[in-house]
């Protein structure tokens, strides 16, 4: 009797927790008023990462840019439309072959009251190019600048060391954000890094590492006062938790919504999902030193065996755009005339047979383990390659190991994932460091024609000639099939409907000047 009873209870009990929790998770929210209303005109943004240092010369992280673009201004400004326009400089022109002159905006002050002028520009670049900048990752971007010369209080000259076709774009980059000389000289760089001061539309209020950063509106901003009173950036590493914060009404904007959670955001009546094409492109590279990847027929067979379009439609739910070379359509150097490699499993089998690759051959695909979308795509590829007779093993590798050991020391499988968005939106940024022989992340591949085209595009400022060289390069790489470009990444933002005027930025620089809340 007792036994029978016990068994019944036990049978019910085992799935009980799942049912109860699952039931709660699937039911309608019962909370009455959304906490979003109680925040008034202040904004809460959840982002994955705390960059830890707010000094512009000390970082390369997109998570810095998300905040930094509201704290700091550069001489040049690049908005969400990726068009360059005047920032702290009102105009610029080349006054000689190697001298670039900027006219500065008048009447601008830093958040601490210090005036912005030519001295501040000179200080910023002296610091960036000097020993302080040498400790950070930004300096390498600006080595084409020899020095900055003060002409008068509101005019500066940039004297160039070498040709740099993308210098104007770079002056909108992180490292070129103008910083306050007096403040840094008095307080020191370490203090500045945790108590940043700039000229931007918001000023620093409070920072608790790994938890949150709070900014308040800079009502004296030169381009008009922001419409929200304050903004708190919270650092929430787990994507599922960021979405939960959004659903609970405790966050207004969530960065980095994973594709797998897109449906959750779309299905919530108080939220909108905002997709935006990013400069980042995902591809599979081949290591030609690992047989059979040295054989072009094998590489072409792989490009024909994987149905990229279906992967984009299903796993990425359409949030991805096919690409034919390793650059996004936003990139200078992209050739729209090149069609992506066609999906043709029959041809793949034929090419494999021609290359003498036996059915059942083992091949390995390495990838950094933090890319969730690619992780799913790679598992689909296992099945697709199985149907052309290849046995694909997946090798997820912890990301720092991947980028500082596995790739540079050619320890990958025959294939490996690579994702990259050149922030200058110029193919040179990608192509030189990936295809030029002996670069850090190109330990194996080399090709005489590729070297020739790279040399051509680097040696001139003439954008037409450069574009021609890039097109030739695109074609050569495409024919060699040394890599298999998959898709341009689409970033997803989750936004509460009370937020107005938010534009999802391709480069993660969320500008809050014109954002308001209802």
């Amino acid at each position, binding site marked *: 009797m007792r036994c029978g009873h016990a068994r019944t209870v036990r049978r019910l009990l085992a799935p009980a927790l799942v049912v109860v929790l699952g039931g709660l*998770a699937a039911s309608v929210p019962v*909370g009455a008023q959304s906490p979003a209303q109680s925040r008034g005109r202040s904004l809460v943004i959840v982002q994955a990462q705390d960059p830890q240092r707010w000094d512009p010369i000390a970082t390369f992280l997109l998570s810095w840019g998300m905040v930094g673009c509201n704290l700091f201004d550069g001489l040049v400004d690049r908005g969400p439309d990726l068009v360059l326009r005047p920032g702290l400089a009102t105009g610029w022109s080349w006054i000689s072959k190697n001298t670039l002159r900027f006219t500065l905006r008048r009447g601008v002050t830093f958040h601490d009251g210090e005036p912005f002028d030519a001295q501040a520009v000179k200080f910023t670049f002296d610091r960036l190019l000097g020993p302080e900048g040498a400790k950070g990752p930004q300096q390498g971007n600006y080595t084409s600048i020899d020095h900055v010369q003060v002409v008068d209080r509101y005019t500066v000259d940039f004297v160039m060391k070498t040709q740099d076709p993308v210098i104007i774009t770079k002056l909108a980059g992180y490292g070129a954000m103008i910083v306050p000389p007096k403040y840094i000289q008095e307080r020191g760089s370490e203090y500045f890094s945790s108590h940043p001061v700039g000229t931007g539309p918001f000023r620093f209020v409070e920072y608790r590492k790994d938890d949150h950063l709070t900014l308040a509106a800079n009502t004296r901003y030169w381009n008009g006062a922001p419409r929200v009173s304050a903004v708190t950036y919270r650092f929430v590493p787990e994507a599922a938790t960021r979405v939960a914060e959004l659903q609970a009404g*405790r966050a207004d904007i969530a960065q980095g919504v994973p594709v797998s959670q897109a449906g959750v955001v779309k299905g919530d009546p108080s939220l909108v999902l905002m997709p935006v094409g990013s400069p980042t492109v995902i591809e599979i590279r081949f290591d030609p030193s690992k047989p059979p990847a040295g054989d072009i027929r094998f590489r072409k067979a792989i490009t024909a065996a994987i149905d990229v379009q279906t992967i984009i439609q299903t796993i990425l739910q359409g949030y991805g755009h096919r690409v034919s070379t390793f650059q996004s359509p936003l990139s200078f150097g992209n050739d729209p005339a090149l069609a992506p490699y066609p999906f043709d499993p029959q041809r793949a089998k034929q090419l494999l047979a021609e290359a003498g690759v036996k059915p059942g051959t083992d091949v390995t695909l390495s990838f950094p383990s933090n890319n969730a979308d690619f992780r799913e795509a790679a598992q689909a590829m296992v099945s697709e390659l199985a149907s052309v007779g290849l046995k694909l093993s997946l090798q997820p590798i912890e990301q*720092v190991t991947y980028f500082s050991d596995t790739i540079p020391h050619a320890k990958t499988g025959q294939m490996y994932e690579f994702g990259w968005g050149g922030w200058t939106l110029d193919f040179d940024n990608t192509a030189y460091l990936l295809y030029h022989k002996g*670069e*850090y992340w190109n330990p194996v591949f080399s090709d005489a024609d590729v070297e020739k085209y790279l040399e051509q595009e680097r040696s001139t400022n003439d954008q037409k000639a450069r574009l021609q060289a890039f097109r030739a390069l695109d074609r050569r790489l495409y024919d060699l099939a040394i890599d298999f470009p998959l898709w341009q990444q689409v970033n997803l933002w989750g936004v509460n409907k009370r937020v107005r005027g938010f534009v999802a930025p391709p480069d993660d620089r969320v500008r809050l000047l014109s954002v308001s809340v209802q």
Partner: protein
Amino acid sequence: MVRYIAARTAGAAIVLAAITLFVAFAIRLTGDPAVALFEGAGAPSRQDIERIQHAFGTDRPFVVQYAAFLAHGVRGDLGTSFRSGQPVTAMIADRAGATLLLAVGGMAVALAIAFPLGVYAATHRDALTDFLIRVASLLGLSFPNFWLGIMLILALAVRLRWLPPSGDAGPASLVLPSTTLGIILASTLVRLVRATLLDTLGQPYVRTARAKGLRELRVVVRHGLRNALLPVVTFIGLQFGGLLGGVVVLENVFAWPGLGQLALQAVSYRDYPVVQGVVVVLAVGVVLVNLLVDLSYGLLNPRVRVGP
């Protein structure tokens, strides 16, 4: 006693030296912090990497780096973080409080669940209720901690909106992470309390006490629990060291600004000084707790002698 503690302190110093040497060496095999710094940037050039390695001092021979770490370490200076530019000791001090709070909260939840249930199960051995308690205690062990955490967030924070989903802002935000941690710890603790209590309740002297006509509750508490505490205290001591491993994942899920997140980020950015610093602090903690556990053996059970 003094001699014993002195011997243990010497042992602890050896442990610390060994573990820092091993950690400092091992972490350098796994990747380059200079490259990690370029995340989000696309590719660094070789010159960039060499420049940063020089700024970090990681271009020096390992022996030189380790000697510098030791030389500063004995003066209480654990170096400067590559990633934040802050002194490591300040970073650890900033976050230790949050983790301690979470650990204490989790342990409190665990004990509050485990003692009543464990004692009840032991005193009703093989009854249906005993069985149900044992089975129910396994539920906490049947889900990975991140999964349980996400489920609790969805149920209590998103649907019911009783509690904030994540972050550290006031006592309400402690509830979800410490409950998650507590449920997981309680699973093991319930069974341990039950098992050890059963062991002691089966002892002749307990039967004697019963035969003397002592009230059952008094027998259980005075004679049973007192002796059952030994393995439970050992377990709590063991868990303390293991706790940091467990909170790494939970702090990540709950965006809790504690040592677990600091450690995980330090490891994933190869922030050598922070990794070394966290390990030193952790090792000191483990050594101390285990020393206390060993000493408590003597208090809980007078016949046990420890030490040489």
